[in-house]
């Protein structure tokens, strides 16, 4: 009986995954195209929300630079569990064309491993939608997010905060 009831939560979550819109690269345009009427992701229950506090998953759109990494990790830190990571674009994979640049984080999959990764430069909305449906399955089966299991993001965030204590004094910051 109890397990059935818990299943209900997975089903409910999977049918209304909300996203925090975290844009850092040019792939975020295709996410906006998804919001439009032509690809219409709301028919599957996806929705952008303004605050990470309400979000179920975060989208890494393209590259992550060093300066933006603490912002990303803090945004992720503020999300309630269970939380999932969705990454699109070659830059999120290995830095893409900037793989030897000194100011781009090339090991994002180690720091914050995505649960679903969609390739492309940028991927088409159809491909992103396919990936999102894949993630719906993961939420449905209540698999643990990969970032919680094997990511090193907690240590990295701690290091970043030690390096730059001003970050933690932001009005909306709650450490975790």
């Amino acid at each position, binding site marked *: 009986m109890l397990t059935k009831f818990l299943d209900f939560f997975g089903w409910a979550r999977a049918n209304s995954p909300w996203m925090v819109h975290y844009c850092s690269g040019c792939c975020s345009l295709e996410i906006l195209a998804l919001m439009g009427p032509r690809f219409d992701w709301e028919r599957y229950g996806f929705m952008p929300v303004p605050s990470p506090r309400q979000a179920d998953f975060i989208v890494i759109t393209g590259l992550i630079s060093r300066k933006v990494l603490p912002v990303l990790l803090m945004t992720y830190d503020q999300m309630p569990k269970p939380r999932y990571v969705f990454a699109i674009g070659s830059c999120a994979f290995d830095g893409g064309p900037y793989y030897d640049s000194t100011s781009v984080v090339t090991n994002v999959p180690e720091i914050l491993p995505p649960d679903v*990764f969609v390739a492309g*430069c940028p991927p088409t909305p159809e491909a992103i939608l*396919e990936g999102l449906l894949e993630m719906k399955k993961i939420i449905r089966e209540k698999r643990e997010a990969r970032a919680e299991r094997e990511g090193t993001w907690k240590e990295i965030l701690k290091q970043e905060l030690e390096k730059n204590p001003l970050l933690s004094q932001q009005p909306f910051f709650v450490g975790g």
Partner: protein
Amino acid sequence: MFKMFLFSLKNLFSKPATLPEGTEKPKQYRGLIKYYEETCIYCKKCEMVCPPGAIIFTYPEDGSKRLIFHYNPYLCIYCGECVRACPKPGTLVQVEDTAPPATAQDKPNDLWFEVEKEAVESKKIWQEARRKKRNK
């Protein structure tokens, strides 16, 4: 405001703009790279021109000339520069498919980092083998 309201009313009764699931892609899409080994001359021009380094050749241990082609669809930016750089037309072809979404089980990045390491190491072994062959 009234005009917009009229448009909205009209939209209620017109055909939806949303593409239904499983709509076919336009034919001209630039997608994955396909490799046909029969005509390859192993000049490695594609490896040199690729901006993100999504094409890597590893070297066989026995020192033969047939290099092994590796291609990472998740790193590729689909610019098509390798196809244009290829001196033998037909060896590399750009098709319309895209890479399927990768989940945690696939771990494409870990495998790829191994290939990158292997390319450096196997080159040394290959050169050694070549030298031995030549000395014979």
